[in-house]
């Protein structure tokens, strides 16, 4: 580690008047390696923190404090090294670090999240820890937004801060307090107090700024025809759906036209003080609790049929059935128990057969097109069941998926529209009395008598229990047929499995680590997962019914219903502890990578939103400073760079930053490919030099010679007299950075492998060409399709292709680098050949065939 004297050197260079001697290239590289080391430390801590979010570890506050401290120290050291290398060009990085680390510390110092409460949030802005600000109804809906198949109508919420603003603007605090005091003293009746307060609220005026905010948000969610749309305006009070059930005590309004949205706001607020709500408070002795309400606005889902789904029967929870009730039109009558409804008992196991149904005459409904009043159901429909078996299955699948996600018995409000789209309007805990829960046998006894198929083979990536039939997934086709509620079993923890994860009840893989990408996704969707369970795919076979116990690290034969119900009804989920919520909030500020394109306009220090961004930024800028500006090949060779000699028609200068090259006899100014000891470079080179990569079919002779000249490095004339651009590879034992200004293209590859998959990444960028934009874009499409199939996340913009890949095992990274090497050679003159869109598929197939051929010959790894 560098000492203080060297730390202060950047500042001496900044403030000292004497011009300092240029620092030797090797010294700069030593600093660069320090940066790699520090960044690795940060990435390791990041990986460690992510795995802790899976619930298999017990950690405490001190652990979080220590992690943040270490991260802060490391990025700061990294920033010092960067400024040393660049002669203090990036001093603003220190400010950014200070701000980011301070944010993390604030997050640590409070139990509730560190944010300034806004008056209004769109549903996708609601974050963990905002329950109190937006109410549980809104909070739970916001958590479902990213779940596939659970459609949540888009919306926004006016938070508790908006409510307080309203009271303050209209000077209502004192008046309400005085009236509530009279209620507590018993000097006034509930009826009087309720009426007086409601009149005060309804008589107030919405502050102009809040009025403005509500209407523009409604326009935002309503789209171009917002003013003709209908909305729901619903209460989302603190405590409602939470520990206290104020359910149904506050008002909600459906089918509200745009012009009445503001009046609706006041009406919902006033219902906080309704007679029944005040009576409930007195009865439960909650009068001391602060009263506040948020109001949720959503676009109306045009319900053809609506109802309620109970994931379990609250009176008979041990039965393997869910309970579904449904009526025509919007759900208000069903929810409030005021209308006639059909009811169904539905098996929890797929394919969710109906075991019992009661179809009644349904003569009244609230139509989705009307003014929210009760109408007569057309005579022909009154006696019909309002759901068919397919619709019942659809509702049960989504309802049980939500139950797996929330990990509690659920009461779900839903609506099916005319197009058959299923909308989720609310999900909350279904209360089941303790007396109804069977307790005759201890859990230990139950678990003890199961037939164990696998025991303590792998690592737990996310704790919990899941049951269902096994689907073995090996190909993308297997993914497409993956059933909701199935147990996903796979040899590799492929990142592309992510698509099926939200549907899965549990996951088991032969190979994989808790820090890998798939494990991260499993945690995000809260799916119990055991990874690295060697031999699992041999024991667990297609369609076999199993229970995955990712708490005791076992897989049992069959469905262990008692265990599943125990988890669901009795066991608190580990994520409710405040340290877990803190960890999740911290991770959101640490791990996402937003700074992607090093040549993008936003790639500067102030664009760093997370620690991961910072690490990436510092690395990139340090690297650029070392390799790009003003370094002529001659200077580079003086500093120890070598010319590569090979059969591949590519001029390449190689710089070894440590462990990338083996000595080959005496010291020369050139090296051979056989001397590569860098893992990523070896893999890349195998691809680049593999058969067929460089023998594209003949283009016209003139063109060929042109292309040939272009493959060579551009000359000073081409680059406009600037220092010549060179094809440069900077390699280390586990590191590769390539910049290839080949012809008119510019290709960059940055890749590293580290102690855990979290450290492993490949970044690939490709831009340019000699042909018109259409042909170049065709090539971009081709590249992206090849890369996407190889698990890359790809962005295409015109002829620019940016691809990223992280969290893979070392050998998987090697395979992808092979592919990149081959692709660079293959694609170099493709823009010329891609004369029509149809050619894209032709050449994509050609490339795939070549890859298959080399794979078959075993030369990939």
């Amino acid at each position, binding site marked *: 580690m560098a000492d203080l004297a060297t730390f202060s050197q950047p500042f001496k260079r900044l403030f000292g008047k004497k011009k300092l001697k240029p620092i030797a290239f090797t010294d700069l590289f030593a600093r660069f390696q320090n940066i790699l080391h520090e960044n690795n430390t940060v990435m390791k801590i990041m990986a460690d923190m992510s795995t*802790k979010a899976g619930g*298999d*570890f*017990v*950690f*405490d*506050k*001190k*652990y979080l404090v*220590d992690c943040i401290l270490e991260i802060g120290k490391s990025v700061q050291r990294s920033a010092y090294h960067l400024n040393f290398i660049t002669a203090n060009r990036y001093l603003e990085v220190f400010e950014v670090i200070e701000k980011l680390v301070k944010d993390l510390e604030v997050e640590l110092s409070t139990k509730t999240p560190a944010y300034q409460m806004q008056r209004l949030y769109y549903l996708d802005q609601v974050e963990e820890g905002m329950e109190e600000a937006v109410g549980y109804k809104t909070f739970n809906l916001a958590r479902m937004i990213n779940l596939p198949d659970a459609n949540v109508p888009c919306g926004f919420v006016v938070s508790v801060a908006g409510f307080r603003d309203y009271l303050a603007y209209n000077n209502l605090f004192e008046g309400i307090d005085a009236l509530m005091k009279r209620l507590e003293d018993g000097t006034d009746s509930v009826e009087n107090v309720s009426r007086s307060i409601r009149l005060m609220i309804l008589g107030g005026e919405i502050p102009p700024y809040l009025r403005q905010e509500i209407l523009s948000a409604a326009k935002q969610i309503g789209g171009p025809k917002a003013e003709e749309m209908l909305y729901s305006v619903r209460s989302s009070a603190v405590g409602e759906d939470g520990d206290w059930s104020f359910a149904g005590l506050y008002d909600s309004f459906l089918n509200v036209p745009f012009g009445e949205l503001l009046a609706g706001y006041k009406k919902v607020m006033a219902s906080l003080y309704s007679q029944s709500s005040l009576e409930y408070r007195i009865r439960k002795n909650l009068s001391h609790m602060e009263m506040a309400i948020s109001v949720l606005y959503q676009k109306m889902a045009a319900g053809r049929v609506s109802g309620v789904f109970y994931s379990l029967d609250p009176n008979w929870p041990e039965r393997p059935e869910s309970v579904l009730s449904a009526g025509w039109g919007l759900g208000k009558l069903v929810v409030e128990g005021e209308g006639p409804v059909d009811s169904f008992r539905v098996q929890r196991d797929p394919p969710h057969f109906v075991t019992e149904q009661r179809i009644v005459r349904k003569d009244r409904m609230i139509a989705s097109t009307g003014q929210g009043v009760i109408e007569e159901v057309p005579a022909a429909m009154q006696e019909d069941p309002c759901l068919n078996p397919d619709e019942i299955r659809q509702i049960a699948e989504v309802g049980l998926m939500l139950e797996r996600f929330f990990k509690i018995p659920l009461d779900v409000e839903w609506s099916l529209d005319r197009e058959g789209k299923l909308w989720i309007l609310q999900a909350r805990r279904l209360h089941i009395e303790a007396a109804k829960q069977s307790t005759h046998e*201890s*859990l*230990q006894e139950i678990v003890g008598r199961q037939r164990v198929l696998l025991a303590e083979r792998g690592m737990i990536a996310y704790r919990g229990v899941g049951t269902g039939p096994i689907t073995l997934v090996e190909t993308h086709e297997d993914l497409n047929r993956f059933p909701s509620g199935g147990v996903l079993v796979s040899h590799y923890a492929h990142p592309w499995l992510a698509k099926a994860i939200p549907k899965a009840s549990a996951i088991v893989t032969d190979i994989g680590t808790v820090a890998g990408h798939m494990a991260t996704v499993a945690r995000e969707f809260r799916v119990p997962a055991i990874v690295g369970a060697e031999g699992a795919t041999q024991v667990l076979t297609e369609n076999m019914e199993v229970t995955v116990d990712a*708490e005791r*690290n076992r897989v049992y034969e069959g469905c262990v219903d008692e265990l599943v119900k*125990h988890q669901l009804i009795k*066991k*608190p989920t*580990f994520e409710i*502890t*405040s*340290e877990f919520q803190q960890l999740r909030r911290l991770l959101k500020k640490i791990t996402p990578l937003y700074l992607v394109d090093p040549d993008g306009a936003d790639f500067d220090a102030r664009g760093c939103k997370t620690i991961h961004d910072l690490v990436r930024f510092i690395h990139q800028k340090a690297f650029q400073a070392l390799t790009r500006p003003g370094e002529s090949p001659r200077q580079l060779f003086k500093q120890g760079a070598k010319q590569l000699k090979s059969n591949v028609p590519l001029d390449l200068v190689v710089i070894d930053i440590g462990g990338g090259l083996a000595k080959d006899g005496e010291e020369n100014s050139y090296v051979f490919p056989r001397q590569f000891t860098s893992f990523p470079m070896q893999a890349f080179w195998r691809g680049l030099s593999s058969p067929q990569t460089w023998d594209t079919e003949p283009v016209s002779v003139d063109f060929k010679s042109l292309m040939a000249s272009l493959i060579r490095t551009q000359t000073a004339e081409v680059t406009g007299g600037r220092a010549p651009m060179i094809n440069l590879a900077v390699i280390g034992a586990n590191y590769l950075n390539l910049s290839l200004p080949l012809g008119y293209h510019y290709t960059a590859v940055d890749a590293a492998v580290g102690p855990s998959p979290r450290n492993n990444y490949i970044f690939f960028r490709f831009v340019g060409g000699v042909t018109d934009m259409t042909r170049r874009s065709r090539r971009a499409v081709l590249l992206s399709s090849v890369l996407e199939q190889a698990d890359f996340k790809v962005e295409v913009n015109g002829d620019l292709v940016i691809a990223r890949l992280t969290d893979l095992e070392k050998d998987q990274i090697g395979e992808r680098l092979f592919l990149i090497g081959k692709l660079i050679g293959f694609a170099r003159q493709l823009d010329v050949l891609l004369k029509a869109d149809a050619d894209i598929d032709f050449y994509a197939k050609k490339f795939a065939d070549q890859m298959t051929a080399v794979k078959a010959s075993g030369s990939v790894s």
Partner: protein
Amino acid sequence: MQNKTSICILDDEPIVGDRLKPELEDDGYEVEIFIDSASALERVQQRCFDIFITDLKMEGVDGIGFLERVKKLWPTSEVIVITGYGTLETARESLIKGAYDFIPKPFRIEDIRTAVKKAKKKVKHQQKD
């Protein structure tokens, strides 16, 4: 039915007890949790626990102090020490003072399960003698 093995957990960070209690109860143990040593000591005067799990660094009587008192009061019980300040020195000291096992934080739930299982065996053996 056989009496349940009893466990007392003392850690000033509530998350430790909150996480361990449901897990150990699932395994059939009887668990009480405390977040300050004063109230834990008061309870320990009243009744015996078969196994104690204690943090080291705490306000008032610290983990080592608690360990000594418990061993004096209930010599056939066993104590497992957990700490976020896991150094060789602290480990050595706790073991010398009679701790059965020493587990640095953060730890896997499985680590505690295994330690508790082994401690239980030893306690049952000692209680028979």
